[in-house]
């Protein structure tokens, strides 16, 4: 590790401060609590010196100097505010406002505009100019990006974030002088990643989003920081939410306050693809099959039917005749509850989910080690990264962002081993192209199995790569689902030998959580094998959990086809499409599906229940790195219910004591705001039911966080700081140390989502924004299945 840089002493506004050598004056001041105004300066992007707002007086320099381009110097004496500086800034504002349309009353940025704020600070609101302003018409560059030149102050932030930050370089500057104009790469439109970073970074309202523009004002919304529901990276997205006739409407997503692991980064999905929630095709009432048609029904009727059928099958054929399929997009609490429901209420271990990574294999390989997983934050600061398989630019956009920034800002070394010319090769110190399917052999080679090299590529290049990797300290190794089963172990061994940390990449927002929470036929939460349930472990499950491993997802379908599976409960999953299963298998199986849309699986069901999505509920998600984060409910949508509530209600209708499922009681209450939904009439709905059950209405069994205590107690690695978690901080969980032995992992069941930047399983199919951008149809592998889950 390099030595910490030397400290420099300087005086700012009479205050002695220190800063590491090489720090920009503007940053040194900010760290010392002295804010210097700026437009063009943006931390992490190259410096421009263009807006001249950050001018300060430095002793011995005749002219005012830009603090964003000046590096701190020993003994420097700086004044950041005096009459001359004030006047300089004021006149800068007067000039930039001279051509500004001043349409604040209708501008999207009004109320959160840096130019407005600055104008108030410097009192430059009165114009000295009487001449006519320059005008240009607004342009639409893509379904999501609009540009209004008159509002642009030419700070070039958009150009830089697109180029330097995203490595897309789709924006540039055309013309010169007062005719200068930001321009898109395709002359009159954009072809890019459509991430919208340019829009969010724009200090004014020059770039606006097609999804949000002119719909509302910042102060008319609630701003709720929650976790993106798409890929497995776990970006915090701050949703702007307004009340509507259906309860609430999400108006926009951004992360301007840089809360969370992603800073201000969001890809197109986190920023715009919340729109599936208001798709007209969304199911809003329970549907029951009558005369082979799905017809609207009441929740009560649906619960009654489901409860009686499940009870009937359980009591007649035993739990092994019932199957449960969980979701990669439901919360940890819901997943935990679902497996608990399956095991204790339905008395079955037939529970599984769509697997996108070999987490049990990962946990097995890590047995006997400690602290060997890396967090998403580590990726942004590690001195070196080894990436094997996967294409993060498409599948893990945040991971790709972290890697790019680390390479660009910290000169981190990226070693990439891939069977495709993935885009991150541009950041790679070493890019090694291998033949598809030889990722595992590469892992073997890393631990000294030289004969494995022959199938991977040029031995000389491989040797030199391995030598370099052996010399890296603080390496982070991220690997895609290409590495699974037996191949994970050598990788862990290599990591151990160099002190590296690992990330096992899985798709979807909570696939890691689904695995950690035991959506497996043979593993309980925390990867505890059902076959080993004895003693106190058994007591954790009240001695009632079945100890025979159950059926995997595919086995369930075979059992259904063979008439042995009589009931199937599918929560937020579309196995029929994803695994390309025979729809007729379910002909004689009573099937319940909880979803937002009539998916290929839902259309086969006997009962379909309209579920809330991740933006409509609280709870926690675990991202692909194992970072645990809190979800906050943006608001309630009338007529749908969270998966959590639905499960509790079914258990209740089956006559199960709900206290045994969700340990809610006075004192356990974590967050009162969670399910009350005071804004939408939810409160009454709950209160009526709760009162009928003789339950004190303030302590809700529908509160996912009521389960968090139990999860934290029973799932090793989840004993993180509750306070931090509740405060919205990401908390890295470690994988449980299983000591010795192998966990059943079924690598053959792993099916990657094959999502691109512009697809996102089922949700993506119902996102107008994702479908409207022209880049949407690019790069989908030919053999990719139907996007599902």
């Amino acid at each position, binding site marked *: 590790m390099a030595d910490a840089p030397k400290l420099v002493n300087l005086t700012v506004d009479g205050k002695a401060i220190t800063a590491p050598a090489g720090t920009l004056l503007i940053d040194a001041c900010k760290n010392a609590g002295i804010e210097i105004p700026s437009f063009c300066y943006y931390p992490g992007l190259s410096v421009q010196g*263009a807006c001249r707002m950050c001018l300060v007086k430095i002793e011995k320099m005749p002219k005012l100097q830009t603090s964003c381009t000046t590096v701190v110097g020993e003994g420097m004496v700086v004044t950041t505010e005096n009459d001359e500086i004030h006047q300089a800034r004021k006149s800068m504002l007067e000039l*930039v406002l001279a051509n500004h349309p001043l349409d604040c009353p209708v501008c999207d940025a009004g109320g959160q505009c840096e130019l407005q704020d600055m104008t108030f600070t410097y009192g430059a609101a009165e114009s000295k100019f009487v001449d*006519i302003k320059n005008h240009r018409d607004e342009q639409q560059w893509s379904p999501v990006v609009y540009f209004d030149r008159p509002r642009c102050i030419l700070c070039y932030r958009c150009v830089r974030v697109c180029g330097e930050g995203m490595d897309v370089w789709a924006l540039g500057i055309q013309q010169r*002088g007062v005719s200068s104009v930001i321009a898109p790469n395709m002359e009159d439109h954009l072809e890019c990643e459509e991430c919208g970073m340019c829009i969010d970074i724009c200090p004014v309202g020059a770039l606006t989003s097609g999804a949000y523009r002119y719909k509302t004002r910042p102060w008319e919304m609630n701003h709720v920081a929650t976790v993106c529901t798409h890929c497995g990276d776990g970006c915090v997205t701050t949703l702007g939410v307004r009340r509507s006739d259906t309860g609430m409407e999400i108006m926009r997503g951004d992360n301007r306050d840089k809360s969370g692991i992603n800073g201000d980064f969001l890809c197109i999905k986190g920023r715009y693809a919340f729109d599936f929630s208001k798709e007209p095709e969304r199911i809003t009432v329970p549907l029951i099959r009558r005369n082979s048609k799905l017809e609207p029904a009441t929740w009560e009727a649906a619960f009654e039917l489901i409860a009686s059928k499940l009870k009937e099958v359980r009591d007649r054929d035993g739990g092994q005749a019932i199957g449960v399929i969980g979701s990669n997009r439901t919360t940890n609490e819901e997943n935990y509850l679902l497996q608990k429901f399956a095991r204790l209420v339905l008395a079955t271990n037939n529970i599984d989910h769509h697997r996108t990574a070999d987490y049990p294999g990962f946990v097995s390989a890590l047995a006997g080690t400690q602290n060997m997983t890396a967090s998403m934050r580590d990726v942004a600061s590690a001195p070196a990264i080894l990436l094997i398989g996967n294409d993060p630019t498409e599948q893990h956009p945040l991971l790709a962002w972290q890697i790019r920034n680390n390479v660009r800002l910290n000169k981190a070394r990226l070693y990439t081993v891939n069977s495709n010319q993935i885009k991150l090769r541009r950041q790679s110190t070493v890019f090694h192209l291998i033949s598809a399917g030889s990722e595992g052999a590469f892992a073997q080679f890393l631990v000294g199995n030289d004969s494995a090299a022959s199938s991977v590529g040029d031995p000389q290049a491989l040797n030199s790569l391995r030598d370099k990797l052996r010399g890296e300290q603080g390496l982070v190794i991220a690997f895609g689902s290409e590495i699974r089963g037996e191949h994970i172990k050598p990788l862990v061994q290599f990591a151990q030998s160099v002190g590296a940390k690992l990330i096992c990449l899985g798709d979807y927002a909570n696939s890691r959580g689904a695995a950690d929470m035991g959506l497996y036929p043979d593993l309980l939460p925390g990867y505890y094998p059902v076959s080993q349930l004895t003693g106190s472990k058994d007591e954790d499950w009240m001695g009632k959990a079945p100890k025979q491993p159950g059926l995997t997802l595919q086995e369930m379908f075979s059992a259904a086809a063979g008439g042995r599976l009589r009931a199937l409960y599918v929560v937020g999953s579309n196995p029929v499409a994803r695994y390309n299963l025979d729809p007729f298998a379910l002909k004689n199986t009573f099937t319940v599906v909880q979803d937002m849309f009539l998916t290929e699986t839902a259309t086969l069901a006997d009962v379909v229940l309209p579920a809330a999505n991740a933006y409509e509920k609280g709870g926690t998600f675990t991202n692909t790195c194992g970072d645990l984060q809190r979800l906050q409910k943006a608001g309630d949508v009338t007529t749908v219910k969270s998966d959590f509530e639905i499960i509790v209600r079914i258990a209740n209708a089956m006559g199960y004591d709900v206290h045994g499922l969700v340990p809610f009681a006075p004192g356990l209450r974590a967050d009162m705001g969670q399910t009350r939904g005071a804004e939408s009439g939810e409160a009454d709905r709950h209160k009526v039911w709760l009162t009928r059950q003789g339950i004190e209405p303030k302590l809700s069994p529908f509160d996912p966080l009521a389960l968090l205590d139990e999860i934290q107690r029973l799932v090793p690695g989840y004993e993180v700081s509750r306070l931090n978690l509740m405060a919205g901080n990401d908390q890295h969980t470690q994988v449980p140390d299983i000591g010795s032995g192998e966990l059943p992992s079924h690598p053959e069941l792993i099916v990657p989502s094959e999502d691109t930047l512009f697809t996102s399983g089922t949700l993506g199919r119902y996102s107008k924004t994702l479908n409207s951008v022209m880049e949407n149809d690019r790069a989908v592998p030919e053999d990719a299945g139907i996007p599902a889950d």
Partner: protein
Amino acid sequence: MADLVSHPAEVKVVSKRFGKGAANIDRYLELDGYKAVQKALGMDPDAIINEVKTSALRGRGGAGFATGMKWSFVPKQSAKPKYVLCNGDESEPGTCKDRLILEHDPHSVIEGVMIAGLAIGARIGYIYIRGEYRYLSVIMEKAIADAYARGFLGKNIFGSGRDFDVYWHGGAGAYEVGEESALMESLEGKRGIPRIKPPFPAVVGLFGGPTVINNVETLASVPPIILQGGEWFASLGTPKNGGTRLYCLNGHINNPGVYELPVGFNLLRMINEVGGGIWKGRKLKAVTPGGSSCPILKAEECDIAMDFDTLMKAGSMLGSGGVVILDDQTCMVKYALRTIKFYQHESCGWCIPCREGTDWLKKSLTRFHAGAGLKKDIDNIQYLAENMLGRTFCALGDAAAMPTISIVKKFRNEFEDHLEGRPCPYDPEAVTQQLPVLAGAH
């Protein structure tokens, strides 16, 4: 091609081969061509730099920085290649001297570039020629090819065992790329936008390598210094202002043209003797002494030595040597407008004060001169220009602000004469606009 003028007061150093066909390499050789570089090949780099320091040669591009000093800033050791850059972007209104050198004596520029290269340890030189000077690039291309053909350029120059390459590069029509760092951006194929300084070109310049950038005339002055000595050159001018300059006398005089005169030559003499006096029997009103960006001098301020330091003391600049002489029939509002039109058009647009400031100055002055001026405009124009000065990203903003400030200050009465619908006293036809009808505009 421009007609040549001459006057007995001239001291011909840089212009000594003008009109003698020296673009032809044989002719150039007959006239002492390529002797200086051969001498320099035998000199220690430090000795070359010292000779140039002794000569008190100061940059002819505008800023007047001491050339020897500039060269000495280049680090001796460098991991990246070093470069010599010749700035032939000459676009400052009133300035038209580099084109004569490039036309009549291109080899002297090549030779100057080579000597600078030997001094700083560079092996590559670029000659950047203003886009509109296309005919000069044809001449330069031939001159470079001829020098290669003779073995003066390329591998093993003059059999010395050393290599030196020279390339010319054409501009694309922007005054701003005359600014040294914008020129390097342009040469690298990017938009002509200046760079943040520091680092200065001497340390991080073209393609990231240490770079010396000099004006055409500066470099053309180098071979005579090497041949005849720094002391001789220094003695031609005034202290710290060595040598001669090509003064471009233009505007309202009888004999406009480019004259080579010792640095420090008296301005009034320049106008009356060398330039043949004000035309049409009129009187002198004002002079812009060093290209359009310099603060203006009123007639009574013109009895002054034309060197960097004296003009600086008088609140103006020697700049690039473009002497713009205005007679007493000149409308100063129109002159201010004409000047600002140029800078508004040429602003690269990178920074707020220059981009917006020049545009609003142009708008205000256009309206003002057209008869729709308001009283508060005079102060506003002054206010705008003063708030640009010293706060822009590069010196173009200053170049626009300085003349404006000085014109408003020194000729405020002429602005007042234009006020409120009154016709321009010098050109009544110019009134085309009505007063803007705006609430509170007065």
